[in-house]
């Protein structure tokens, strides 16, 4: 370093202390600013994520609603199929019982199965055979039984038996069970 009595040494406000101070505060402010930017970015990301999640929830809601609708439909289909299959099985039992019910001495010419009744037409050797072998079991099954006879050509009797189950009484019997 050269010293002179004539030319004054250049003095600067940015001394080493000042530079150190500025560097220190610059780093501090930089760090604070970066933290602030980080917070701003996070906040923006939260808002975006929240928006996406809200949309996803709407989609999931629609998907759940549709799936529930399908589940209800399958349950309805299952109940319907089970009911129909049970009804067919019961019907098969009813027809089996009908043909088992008729004794060999009585010949049926027509049988009509109704939802709550049975109409039988046929021929019987005499009224007693009909009363003991067919009417008795019919009376045990049906609530109302009506029979009418008229003579056939071969000396036997033609009969028409009309039998009904009263729904109300049937429900009462089921309740009692």
């Amino acid at each position, binding site marked *: 370093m050269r010293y002179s009595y004539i030319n004054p040494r250049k003095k600067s406000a940015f001394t080493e202390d000042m530079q150190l101070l500025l560097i220190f505060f610059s780093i501090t402010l930089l760090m604070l600013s970066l933290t602030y930017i980080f917070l701003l970015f996070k906040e923006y990301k939260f808002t975006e994520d929240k928006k996406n999640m809200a949309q996803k929830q709407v989609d999931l809601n629609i998907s759940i609603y549709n799936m529930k609708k399908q589940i209800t439909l399958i349950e309805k289909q299952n109940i319907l199929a089970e009911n129909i299959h049970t009804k067919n*099985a019961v019907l098969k039992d009813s027809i089996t019982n009908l043909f088992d019910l008729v004794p060999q001495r009585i010949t049926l010419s027509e049988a009509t199965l109704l939802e709550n009744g049975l109409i039988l037409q046929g021929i019987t050797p005499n009224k007693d055979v009909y009363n003991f072998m067919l009417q008795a079991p019919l009376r045990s099954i049906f609530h109302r039984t009506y029979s009418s006879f008229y003579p056939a050509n071969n000396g036997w009797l033609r009969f028409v038996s009309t039998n009904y189950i009263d729904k109300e009484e049937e429900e009462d019997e089921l309740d009692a069970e």
Partner: protein
Amino acid sequence: MRSSGLSRQNIYVLISSLVLLIMVLLFSFLVLIPKGKEYRIKRSEMIKVKKEAYRYEKFNNDTLSLLKKLQGANRYTITALSTPFSEDRFLKQHKKYFKTLNLSKRVVSEKDGVFLTYDVNTSSKISSPKSIYDFLDAINKSDWIIGVNFPIKFTREGDMIYSTFSMKVYETDKKDLNSSK
């Protein structure tokens, strides 16, 4: 001349330090700390939203697995109810139980909830009641959901039994199928 107090440069340093310190404090207390608080609130909100989203997703997955399970367990019923009734196929499958089997033209009878029903009148000749038992067993395993309706009439014709009855064929309404997808 050397003053007894602080030098001018030290005063600069001191003033600069104070100004910068005030700036740092102002920035921290007025901007950064409120933002930090806001961030904490939003983060806790986000955790709640994430939990809710997880709950929704879990419920969606549970519902989906239940649906798949039901679809697997009821495959026959679902297929049978979505298959349109074919008279030719029905006759081909079930004619073996009867001497003769005739079907009348199917008629859309009514809409029972989500199901369309068709009435099909049937007349047949059988040699023994066993045929009708076999038919009723087979109808429960057929390609459609079919219910045999009352009245069922059996008439003796020589050695044969002539039977007439109506059947109800059930089919899921396509409109309901589409709307549920």
